[in-house]
């Protein structure tokens, strides 16, 4: 079953004399339970692709199906709902809220899906357990190491039990030890049956995924098993 299905996706930035085609006709299908690594040089369109798959952005043209739903013409509220329920996004720069503690940061998606405070607490704790962070729930992000921050972000991405987990260079801001720890988490998540799409520059990281998609100038130039 396809969790993601892109066909003929274009993303053009700028309407002036020299528009940039960040994505230039991308076709891509990702099935449930796959672990896909997206690679490519800087500026090749990896982040743009992730944003569109993550419902943070919409394509200029082409069709995008997420969990069986066509989002290329969806309204902003619908996109917000998909981001909330179906997608967990992990950013390179963590994007935690500095003034909320770990617990509240993990709970954040649940706040917007109408979960009661007590359920939020319980589910956030479960998610924290999966990333081994139960001892840090009352700390603020500024009191955590980079690796711990990224684990909080992963817990936040997991907390609503989404169909798809997206990570844009999740280890980019981490040293190798912490990076390895984070990658090990993705392996575990994949092992437990989740669909994972991960952007990386690191061939070794790409090698851990079952499938590698390489972009150049907004096009898929390689797609195959590692």
């Amino acid at each position: 079953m396809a969790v993601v299905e892109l066909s003929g996706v274009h993303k053009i930035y700028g309407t002036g004399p020299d528009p940039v085609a960040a994505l230039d006709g991308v076709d891509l299908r990702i099935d449930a339970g796959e672990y896909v690594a997206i690679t490519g040089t800087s500026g090749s369109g990896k982040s743009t692709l992730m944003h569109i798959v993550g419902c943070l952005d919409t394509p200029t043209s082409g069709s995008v199906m997420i969990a069986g739903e066509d989002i290329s013409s969806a309204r902003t509220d619908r996109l917000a709902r998909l981001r909330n329920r179906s997608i967990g996004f992990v950013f390179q720069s963590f994007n935690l809220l500095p003034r909320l503690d770990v617990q509240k940061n993990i709970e954040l998606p649940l706040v917007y899906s109408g979960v009661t405070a007590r359920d939020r607490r319980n589910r956030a704790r479960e998610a924290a357990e999966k990333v081994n962070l139960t001892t840090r729930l009352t700390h603020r992000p500024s009191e955590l190491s980079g690796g711990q921050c990224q684990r909080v972000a992963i817990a936040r991405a997991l907390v609503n039990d989404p169909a798809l987990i997206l990570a844009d260079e999740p280890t980019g801001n981490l040293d190798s030890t912490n990076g390895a720890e984070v990658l090990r988490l993705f392996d575990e998540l994949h092992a437990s049956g989740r669909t994972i799409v991960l952007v990386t520059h690191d061939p070794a990281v790409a090698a851990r995924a079952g499938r590698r998609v390489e972009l150049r100038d907004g096009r898929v130039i390689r797609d195959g098993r590692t």
Partner: protein
Amino acid sequence: MSWFAGLLIGLQEIREHKFRSFLTMLGVILGVASLLAMFGLTAGIASSWRTTMQQMGGLERIGVIDAEVSLELADLAALSPGRTLADAEALRASSRFISHVSPEMQTGATLSATDGATITGRITGAWPDNLVVSQHEVQSGRFITPLDVERGSRVVVLGSTAARDLWPSEPEADRVGRTITINGRPFTVAGILVHYQREEDRQRNLRRGSTSPGSQRGGSVSLAGGRGMGGARRDPFQWKNNSIIVPLTTFYHEFRSGTEDAAPLAMAKIDQLNFRVRDLSHFREALDEASSVLRQAHRGIDDYGFDTREDWFDRMETSLRATQLSGGLIAGVSLLVGGIGIANIMLASIAQRVRELGVRLAVGARRRDIFLQILAESTVIGVLGGFLGLGAGVLLLKLLGAIAPMDNPPVVELSAILISVGFATVVGVLSGLYPAWRASNLDPISALRYE
């Protein structure tokens, strides 16, 4: 996300930035404080005026006064007997819209108590109806009765101050039944009237723990001490507390007949004639009724007029409204400034929090969630500012009272509190609308990229 969750986020935001939030609220605080102070001051004036008015007989009391005879009747003016006791009898006989009639004769007199002091004062000859028309209340003993009037009994009813002045050494004693002389003639004290005072004076005196009318009055004087000569505070009830009332017939026989051109009692001139309207909804009818009765009694000569409290009441309301309007204007301007302040700070704080909003959008916040969050925050600021403003307003009133003691102490009514806080809330909501709209239109990607 619910309003409530938005409120929590708003509160959190305010807790994180206490000082900034306080500065933001300052305009609202000042606005609400001045609104409340304005309401308090005008309500104080209004309530004093109302009690004073009530004590003087209320709107229902109408006085018959002399009036200039119209030109065409000027030659015949002498035909009218003027304001006599017959007028009072005629008014009493026609009682459809008039419930009580009180004619009064007055003169200065010397009173002395054999076991007390000698004082001078104004004595009034009156009917029993005077009790209602002048809104008297008896503290002990009784008022003038119809029998007193019929018999011309030598009884007197004393106001609390007059009684105290007659027996200054025994403020607590019951003086009913004692004998005094008025202009040398013996009278028995039939009753003592209650000590009239404004509500706020009464409460102040209660707090001071004094109970007797005498010491109460002393308390109120000493409180005003240092303000002007003898510290005499304007007391609207002074004249009532100095009442010395005897039956009208007694008055006539003892102090009137023989002295002047001795008209018979029925034709005797009276100094004051007041009556009470039975029902305020028939005020006009009562005036018409009195007018036709008097026209007949005065043989068609229009040498009488009516003194109603209506004009007075209208003037009072107009001036109150003017005060409220100007106070409201000041408060309105500061609330407006406060609102602009909130909007401004909210815009600045959104600019600071673009990334946060981006993160919220990324994890699934809808536009309306962001909108609500910002609106809730500005509303919380408005409401909190409103409550702080209430406190500031009360302090302001206390301060005003301390520097310049007022004849009409301010009254803080519940409605004033609700209106003030309501305005602050509205200001909070309105000033949040534009920032909330701006914030809710952020695009998630550019918000996340924002540095």
